[in-house]
Structures are given as structure tokens and as C-alpha cells.
């Protein structure tokens, strides 16, 4: 595809020498956006479990 900017995959990873900065920024953002929803979903599940425990006791 002519539209793709990069010549090779290695080229893409290297980011013209800025790979560390670009991927460091994206990796942290991805980590935040995976961990935050997981924690919030966990919080809802444990709230339901606590409510269920209160009924049984």
C-alpha cells in the first residue's frame, strides 16, 4: 500500500529515533486504560458480593 508511511516494520518501531518516547507514552496510556476499567469492574462485582453477603447473614 502506497498510503502507508513506513517502509518496514522495524522502521515503524524505531520511529525515526523517537521510538522510546513515542512507545513509552503509548504504553503507559494503554496500561492506564486497561487497569482502570478492570479495577472499576472489580469494584462493582465486590459491591454486589458484599450486598449478597449482607442478605445471607
Amino acid at each position: 500500500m502506497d498510503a502507508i508511511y513506513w517502509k518496514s516494520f522495524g522502521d515503524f518501531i524505531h520511529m525515526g529515533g523517537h521510538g522510546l518516547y513515542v512507545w513509552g507514552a503509548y504504553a503507559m496510556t494503554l496500561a492506564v486504560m486497561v487497569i482502570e476499567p478492570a479495577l472499576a469492574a472489580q469494584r462493582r462485582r465486590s459491591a454486589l458480593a458484599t450486598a449478597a453477603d449482607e442478605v445471607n447473614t
Partner: protein
Amino acid sequence: MRDPATASSQATIKAPMKANSVRWSTFAAPSRFYALAGKLVPWFWAVTAIFAAAGLFIGFAIAPADFQQGNSYRIIFIHVPAAWMSMLVYLVMAFWAVWGWAFNTRLASMYARALAPTGALFTFTALWTGALWGKPTWGTWWVWDARLTSEFILLLLYLGYIALTEAIDDARRAANAGALLALVGVVNVPIIYFSVRWWNTLHQGATISATSAPKMASIMLTALLLMTVAFWAYSFAMALTRARAIVLEQEADTEWVRRLATTKKG
């Protein structure tokens, strides 16, 4: 432990009283909100995924390098949406906090508390990605200029709000104290936004403003706007998910939560 019958009526008694005058107030019942939010969350996740995929494809595969900054500028596609959302989420959080305080609406206060961690994480993301962009562009990770300092203060405001509301056990007192802090902190948002104009900052000026043409190529702008929609939808998905958890926590001794909890358990 309160009697389940009276506890459950507390949750719904507000809505019928106002239902004649204001229709939307029916959604002010936590049980209705819980069900509605549960239906909306998957749609916001779908929007997040679709727009992020499109934005990242255009931003990374199609958009060329910047003639001055090379490829480090590609950080803009997460840095600017995160910074925008950090400010917008704060304003929305303060709005609901003050609404809950002024009109004694428990659900409004719950929205405010649900938004705070998401706003704090966007602020952190903006600072982190900014540091990694600053190093190759300015030669430094951090500088105490007006833009960076005021954004850092925003992070402290979020953390202060979370710490304050978590420290007070009584939900209403926690909400009211938090609302006061959130309201005072609002003054920081225009300071962040206009800092690059009011002071001489190392940080560059606005990429996009209402009064002038965008200072970037349209292909880059397209990727940036797609990513902004993705971050916006992410905020909704997160805030609604967390608000549902908070509703369950604060309504734990009501009949509808008990029924929900026991049927879910089987």
C-alpha cells in the same frame, strides 16, 4: 440494619414526587440509573474501540512525520485528548458535585465521585506523555512553567478531592466537603487553558482554537479528533461503570440491591 421495606422506598420516593413537573427526574432514582447505565456502557466501549482504532491507524500508518519534530509529535494523539479530558472531566465533576450539594441529589454527588479517578488518570496521562514528548523536543522531561505547573496542580486537586471524600464516612458530608473543594479548584481550569497565552511558556501554544485555523496538517488533525472522541467515550464508559459500583455501595441495604445481589449469585 434498616427494615428492607422502608429502605427501598427511600430510593424511589423522590422520583414520583417530582415526576409531574420534571420528566428526567425519574432517572434520578439510583435503581433506574443503574439499569440505564448498564445498557449504555457497552455502547461507549464500542465507540472508544472504533474511534481509537481509526485514529491510531491514521495517526501512525498514514500521517507523515512532522517536519520539525520528526515522529515524536505522534504523542499528540494521546497527549492532547488526555489534557482536554483532564480539564473537561474536572468541570463536569465540579458541576455534579455542586449540583448534589445545592439540590441534595445523592445521585449527582455519586457522579462527581465516579468521575474523579478518571480525571486524575487523564491528568497523569497528560503529564506522563508530555514529559516523554518534552524530552526529545525541549531537551527536558519537566519544567515549572505555567502550563505544566497548573496541570500538576489539577492532579493535586483531583487527588485532594478523592482523599477528602474517601476520608469522610458519611456519604452526604463527604459529598458536600468534596463539592466545596471541587468548586474552589475550578479556577485552575481556565488558568491551565490560557496559561500558554497569559505567560511565556516553554509549552507550545494551542494546537486548535476557535479563533484561528488549526496549526497542523488536516490528516494529523483528523487523527487527533478521532482520538478525542475515543477518549471522550472512554470517560463516559468509565464514569458510568464506577457510578454503578458507587450506587451499589451506597444503596447496599435497599431492597432492589439485595434482590439484584442474590439473583446474580444464583
